[in-house]
């Protein structure tokens, strides 16, 4: 439904191949309140070497969509019920668990929000770095150790040889996240999924880790899918942006288009509601009214309609179709055309 045929967006290196294509992905959770459609027919793609952002607020389905790519959605409550995840021409949903294990960590790596809870507290940093290298790349212990030292040096951890024998609790939050970046890069993956990679970190450390990620992904040609709620981070690091709301992608385009000419009232509302350091101070902020929807009881029409300032009658009755603008700029909104002249700030 939400697919604009001709994308043809400008890329940094001219024509590049599609690395990942998520098509009509549906992931559901069975809860006592009923079926929750956490991801409800979501499609997006990532080209080789490019950085794509998935933006949205808590509960919009952005993390579940990344976990679905890795096939890490917790069963039996959660299930991928439909769609395709085509990575380098193969549908990951059709792979056996064994084949999938080869993909995880080697072809696609993941960086999580809270490095402390995603590292094993009783294994040394060295062991956690070498495990993947030995399993995926068949390295011997000596070669893996050498590579681990090289990786820690690459992410800017001083004195890497000594650090290998330490445990995660001996690392600070920023160093743990650097270590996660090192782990993710270990097997030279083609794609890194970064799920709120810096949300748990302090502002100055956030900047360090993000600059590091951008620098390394460019130098090594790794594609990145950044999942975040931070519009500033997206503006600085993403080439293309997908905005999610209530389990669906409601707007997509290049970062430049999305910020300069948003065509969905939710995107517009998000951009207007944050105070900005570069703007004169406003007397009042411009919030989005109302509360985020309950995913187990979505309204029949557009899920954003109850909070939408531009709502027309049709919005509460029929879910919007994708309206496609220039160069693959897509917006799932009945009135998207009339937003063209709305000032962003």
């Amino acid at each position, binding site marked *: 439904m939400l697919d604009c045929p001709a994308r043809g967006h400008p890329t940094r290196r001219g024509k590049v191949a599609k690395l990942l294509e998520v098509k009509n992905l549906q992931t559901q959770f069975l809860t006592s309140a009923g079926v929750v459609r956490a991801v409800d027919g979501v499609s997006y793609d990532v080209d080789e070497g490019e950085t794509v952002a998935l933006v949205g607020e808590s509960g919009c389905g952005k993390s579940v969509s990344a976990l679905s790519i890795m096939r890490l959605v917790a069963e039996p409550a959660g299930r991928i019920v439909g769609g395709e995840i085509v990575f380098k021409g193969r549908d990951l949903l059709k792979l056996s668990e064994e084949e999938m294990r080869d993909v995880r960590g080697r072809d696609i790596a993941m960086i999580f929000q809270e490095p402390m809870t995603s590292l094993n507290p009783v294994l040394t940093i060295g062991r956690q770095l070498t495990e993947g290298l030995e399993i995926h790349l068949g390295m011997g212990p000596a070669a893996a150790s050498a590579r681990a030292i090289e990786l820690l040096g690459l992410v800017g951890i001083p004195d890497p040889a000594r650090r290998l024998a330490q445990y995660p609790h001996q690392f600070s939050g920023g160093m743990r996240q650097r270590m996660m970046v090192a782990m993710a890069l270990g097997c030279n993956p083609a794609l890194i999924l970064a799920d709120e990679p810096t949300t748990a970190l302090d502002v100055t450390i956030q*900047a360090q880790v993000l600059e590091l990620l951008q620098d390394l992904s460019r130098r090594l040609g790794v594609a990145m899918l950044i999942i975040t709620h931070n519009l500033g981070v997206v503006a600085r690091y993403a080439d293309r942006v997908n905005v999610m709301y209530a389990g669906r992608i409601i707007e997509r385009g290049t970062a430049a288009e999305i910020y300069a000419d948003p065509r969905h009232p939710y995107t517009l509302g998000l951009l207007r509601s944050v105070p900005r350091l570069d703007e004169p101070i406003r007397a009042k902020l411009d*919030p989005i009214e109302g509360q985020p929807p309950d995913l187990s009881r979505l309204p029949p029409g557009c899920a954003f309609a109850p909070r939408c300032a531009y709502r027309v009658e049709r919005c509460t009755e029929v879910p919007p179709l994708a309206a496609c603008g220039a160069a693959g700029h897509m917006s799932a909104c009945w009135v998207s055309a009339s937003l063209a002249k709305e000032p962003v700030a």
Partner: protein
Amino acid sequence: MSDALLEVRDLVKHFPIGGGMFTKPVGVVRAIDGVSFSIRKGETLGLVGESGCGKTTTGRCILQLERPTSGSIVFEGIDMVTLDAAELRAVRRRVQVIFQDPYSSLNPRMTIGQILAEPLKVHGIRRDKGERELRVRELLAQVGLLPQHDKRYPHQLSGGQRQRVGIARALAMEPALIVCDEPVSALDVSIQAQIINLLEDLQSRLGLTYLFIAHDLSVVRHISDRVAVMYLGKIAELADRKAIYDEPLHPYTRALLSAVPIPDPKIEAKRERTVLRGEVPSALKPPSGCVFHPRCPIAVDRCSAEIPPLREIRPGHWAACHLA
């Protein structure tokens, strides 16, 4: 300053590490190391800094949830540090708090109505049950909730609504000063603006004074009249919001501001960033001289030897830097 509602002078809070009944402490965390500032009646003072800089401990000392190691906290002319428990109770009504996470600061087994009525009962502000119910309804209306919300439990509300309850509970005591400790950082972007607008509305309607503790510099810039930047237990810079954001004097403030990405790709593409080296050192063993010198891009020899005092460099603009 005569119009100061709150005056904090040379506040120090050290936490001893280890040490039991018979053993000596093995170290001391210098959470706050000589902090002074004042808040005028009706103004909002923003207190920003990274985790571990002592901003929350400063708030907790003002609330008297921590007893300071030394220094004074003069509120409405009375030094709270010298008060005994009974005297403190009366003052506490006038100083309230809004916490970061409304979910963990509301009792899950009480209804919203009970949560709001309890302080009224405990402090004997409304002795009659009917009067209390009336006041609860008034409080709910003030924060934009509906009368029927009083029968609900915290888990039945959304994050934004729960924070509204947290605000209503602070208002119940008719306080003069509210310590807002990261009141919006747990909320979604679209809800943050709602709560910030509400806090500003209440301030102008009820004449409240805020100490607004946060790490989000854009939010602090929007809501504050003056801003204090803390680093490792000390104030690095303190000034009017315009001065601190337009002409920051301390290199730490400049680095903080440059670390905040602006939601506009066109601006970000051209923007130079000062990315600080290293991490915040431990408050157990703060660096010699200026505590910021190991990460400072412009440090000179003097910075590691001499502690820079907080000086008034321009009228009302204070900075603790040898080079400012």
